[in-house]
């Protein structure tokens, strides 16, 4: 038979001075864990949230980034009239040949420069990516050195306000609008007219093709048809799969988060242990009394473990609350996939918060285990010791 929970709860609170530091400590550990992991989640979410289920991405086989992929004009012409590809009302195939260039731009806060992805798109390409909407200004005009910047990129790089001019190499682009990519990978891009991009950056070839299939069941057939041309050496895969595979940047962040969490939790376990040992020490007589009243050893053991878990669980909840204000905060770093700046948000998902609390509870469990064993081993007669 277990001790009543209110006994455990009240004991946690009655010793609040001693437990406060432990609870705060565990809270900070959990906050760090949740924040660092939320970066990894945010990065993954941004890439997973990209693409249309009806689209197929075609790029050069072996290339890991669109910017290092090349599709020749001849290859692109061959693909244009494949039977699986959908057509618009006027019978034109829904295919967009894009050119992707990395451009080094100065940061707005003057802390250096970073690569930004510039995508040359066709009007068809814009239709194929309905996630992207204009928020300020207007779209670029074909044949003009104009560009539309994702508003998240614009906030991070200099000269990106509407009306601003960005200079890169010998090229000057006028910013005519801001767009929003609905938390997708397009939030990290600058868009301009495809032909204009090819002439401004001296590119003969396209970087990739985005293709809409008429029937999603035919995706595999289309991919097979494109990849079967060994000479062209192209690879076709669903757009969604292409982007969601871009998770290399998140890896090291997860490792960092796990390293910090592990090391810090060792410290937190020591803290919990100390608090619980002190609690056991101070309540020696009380524990003996419970045993005299007929409570078994395992009830005492369980009682102290529950106390440790309550203590740590409180810390875990507090930690999640500390981390929560950062949810949705936009940040950026170098993507290992595209070798350019990727803008993303801290994402504290319910599952991540739950992981934080579970993590805290594990700390509480481990920290209270030995003190609880000690409490359970106390002889019954200790109830009579005047301390």
């Amino acid at each position, binding site marked *: 038979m277990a001790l009543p929970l209110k006994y455990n709860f009240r004991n946690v609170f009655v010793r609040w001075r*001693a437990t406060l*530091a432990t609870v*705060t*400590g565990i809270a*900070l550990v959990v*906050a*760090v864990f949740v924040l*660092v992991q939320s*970066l990894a989640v945010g990065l993954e979410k941004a890439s997973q949230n990209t693409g249309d289920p009806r689209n197929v991405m075609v790029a*050069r*086989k*072996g*290339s*890991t*980034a669109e910017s*290092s992929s*090349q599709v020749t004009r001849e290859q692109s012409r061959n693909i244009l009239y494949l039977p699986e590809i959908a057509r618009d009302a006027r019978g034109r195939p829904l295919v967009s040949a894009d050119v992707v*260039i*990395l*451009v*080094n731009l100065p*940061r707005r806060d003057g*802390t*250096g*420069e*970073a*690569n930004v992805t510039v995508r040359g798109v066709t009007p068809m390409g814009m239709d194929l990516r309905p996630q992207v909407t204009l928020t300020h200004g207007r779209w670029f005009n074909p044949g003009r050195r104009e560009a539309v910047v994702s508003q998240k990129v614009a906030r*991070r790089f200099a000269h990106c306000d509407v009306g601003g001019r960005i200079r*890169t*190499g*010998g*090229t000057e682009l006028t910013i005519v609008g801001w767009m929003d990519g609905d938390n997708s990978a397009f939030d990290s891009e600058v868009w301009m007219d495809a032909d204009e991009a090819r002439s401004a*950056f*001296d590119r003969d070839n396209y970087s990739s093709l985005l293709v809409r299939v008429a029937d999603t069941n035919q995706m595999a057939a289309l991919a097979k048809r494109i990849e079967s041309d060994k000479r062209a050496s192209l690879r076709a895969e669903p757009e969604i799969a292409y982007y969601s595979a871009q998770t*290399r940047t998140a*890896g*090291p962040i997860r490792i960092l988060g796990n390293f*910090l969490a592990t*090391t*810090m939790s*060792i*410290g*937190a376990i*020591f*803290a919990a*242990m*100390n608090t619980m*040992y*002190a609690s056991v*020490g*101070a309540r*020696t007589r009380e524990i003996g009394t419970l045993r005299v009243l007929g409570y078994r050893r395992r009830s005492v053991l369980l009682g102290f473990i529950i106390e440790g878990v309550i203590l740590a669980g409180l810390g875990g909840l507090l930690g999640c609350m500390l981390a929560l204000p950062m949810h949705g905060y936009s*940040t*950026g*770093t*170098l993507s*290992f996939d595209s*070798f350019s*700046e990727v803008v993303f948000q801290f994402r504290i998902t319910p599952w991540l918060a739950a992981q934080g609390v579970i993590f805290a509870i594990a700390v509480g469990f481990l920290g209270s285990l030995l003190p609880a064993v000690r409490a359970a081993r106390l002889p019954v007669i200790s109830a009579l010791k005047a*301390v």
Partner: protein
Amino acid sequence: MTIPAFIIKNALRNKRRAALSILSVAVSLFLLVTLQVALRELTLPPEDVGAALRVAVRNKISLANLLPARQLPIIERIPGVESVTPFTWFGGKYKNEEGMTFAQFAMDAKKLRKVFGEAKMSEEEYVAFENQRNACIIGRITAEKYRLKRGDRITLESTVYPVTMDFQIVGIYSGTVDDRNMLFHQEYLDEASGLPGMVGMWWMKVTSAEAMPKVIQRINDTFANTSAEVRAESERAFQLSFISMWGNIRILVTSVSSVVVFTLVLVSASTMSMAIRERFRELAILKALGFRRRELFAFILAESFGLAAVGGLIGIGSAYLLYTYGDISKLTSGVFVVFEVTPRILAFASLVAASLGILASLLPSLAAARMSVVEGLKTLD
């Protein structure tokens, strides 16, 4: 019995508590040293001996854009330039590994000794590298990681060029800060890719440090308003521009580290305060025996400081030993190379340990000063 003996006996009365306090301090300071060293390496990457005289030239648009090979004779004619080599990122995947663990660059083998003199190999290996078309050399770390030796053949599939190429290892170099890269002939790449005339970057050695700013200026001016504008910069500046690309992550790591350190300091301080609070009975007895407040403070401080000092010694010491004598590159699978625990970091960590000792004694001291003898004697464990 002496007073110090009394303090030591007291501190070890509850051995488990003393051990937990010391361990938690040790863990905190170990982590503190680790994060400080990691941050230092992230913000100030290690520098090669030859770096002071090297200049890197890339396409002004970005590193990902190539440069025309015809720029070479123009650069070579600039006064102050001693030797120039192309340096082209190959982005090859070795075997079926997902991530690349070492970088490969195509260059002019004959310029290796002049531009990257710190990469040491035997004369025989140098000659073999210069004369064999499909030859490559690899760094010691990569060679050890994949158990590669001279004469082995390796195949790499490029993620940048539409080619898969075979190489023969003719040399294994060491002596640079990060002996991991693989180097091979630019002509071999041109031939295989069928796209001659373009290179990734230019790397050069200048005649003197004084000449460097002028050389950089000349190169930038020479190609201004051409179809391929360039950005020339010192090796150091080039490295730092990489760090700038990390963006907010660096600030984030810094602030996370501060939180980490704060947490651990808080936890250790509370642990030690608790250890000292256990002494209240003794303190009350001492007070009853006629010890003054000042002496009680000294007792508390000595004990708290002692615990922090021992913990600090263990934490900082083990971090120092691990990072100085351990193979850090292997431990972090190549993310960190040098991981130097500098005297400044050692001093900072020791200072944190010392302040921890003082901080942890504050609350108990205050309480001890206020407590009456009777009350203290009543205090239950």
